[in-house]
């Protein structure tokens, strides 16, 4: 089977989705997933991130890890735009179950090169059903 048959219509790119379902700090999965995303950004693929279940906790604002002796890696999410990672899907139902609103999340933005470098929000609030659609469109799903 040749590669082309499996690829979507975007030339050589594959659609990569990084699924984030776990809270930060209690385990390393959030951090090491982010490290994959940063390295992966160099490969010119079509990249999205999904945050749902406890994964929404990863991008909550005002994280302060000074008391637990661990590095606060949350600022890195705000730098994703510089790596041309611009689509962060966040599930509404997961926020609601946790008593969170979009205002509790960090502001994560990117500069849209197709729109005169206008600053735009990277976070896209989606319903559970919409998130399912996003997952169904992917070529590779990496979940840590």
């Amino acid at each position, binding site marked *: *089977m040749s590669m082309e048959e499996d690829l979507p219509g975007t030339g050589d790119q594959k659609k990569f989705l990084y699924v984030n379902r776990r809270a930060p700090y209690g385990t390393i*999965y959030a951090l*090491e997933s982010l*490290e*994959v995303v940063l390295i992966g950004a*160099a*490969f010119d693929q079509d990249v999205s991130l999904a945050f749902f279940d406890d994964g929404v906790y990863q991008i909550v604002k005002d994280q302060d890890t000074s008391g637990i002796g661990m590095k606060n890696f949350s600022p890195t999410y705000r730098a994703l735009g510089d790596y041309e990672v611009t689509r962060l899907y966040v599930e509404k139902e997961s926020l609601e179950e946790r008593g969170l609103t979009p205002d509790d999340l960090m502001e994560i933005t990117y500069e849209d090169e197709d729109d005169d470098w206008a600053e735009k929000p990277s976070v896209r609030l989606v319903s559970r059903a919409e998130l399912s659609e996003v997952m169904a469109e992917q*070529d590779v799903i*990496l979940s*840590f």
Partner: protein
Amino acid sequence: MKFGILVNEGPYTHQASDSAYQFTKAALEKGHEIYRVFFYNDGVNNGTRLTVPPQDERNIQVNWSELGEKYKLDLVVCVAAAQRRGILDESEAKRHGKNADNIAPGFRISGLGQLIETGIECDRVVAFGD
């Protein structure tokens, strides 16, 4: 078909590495190609040659090394994850001033880019973890 395998947990503590091994073996026996087995997170701990499991238990590292040998598998341990957890080959050990290394035969240490490449090159990626 071309498969990529991702192993995210170390040996014995979670079944992930066992499941990945059984899956990889079954895929090879069905004639599929295994493009690469990538060890990430605690999965890097599968690549130490210093394990001494009880004699009546399977030896997970040896299982991987032997399967790798038989089918010429590319068993890649992520360098960043390995450094955090103390899995080093000779050159890594030297580079970091450590007086020992512990990488097992048939495993090699390389960058995370090899995981992305696996996603790009393979028809399917299958992950095993906690």
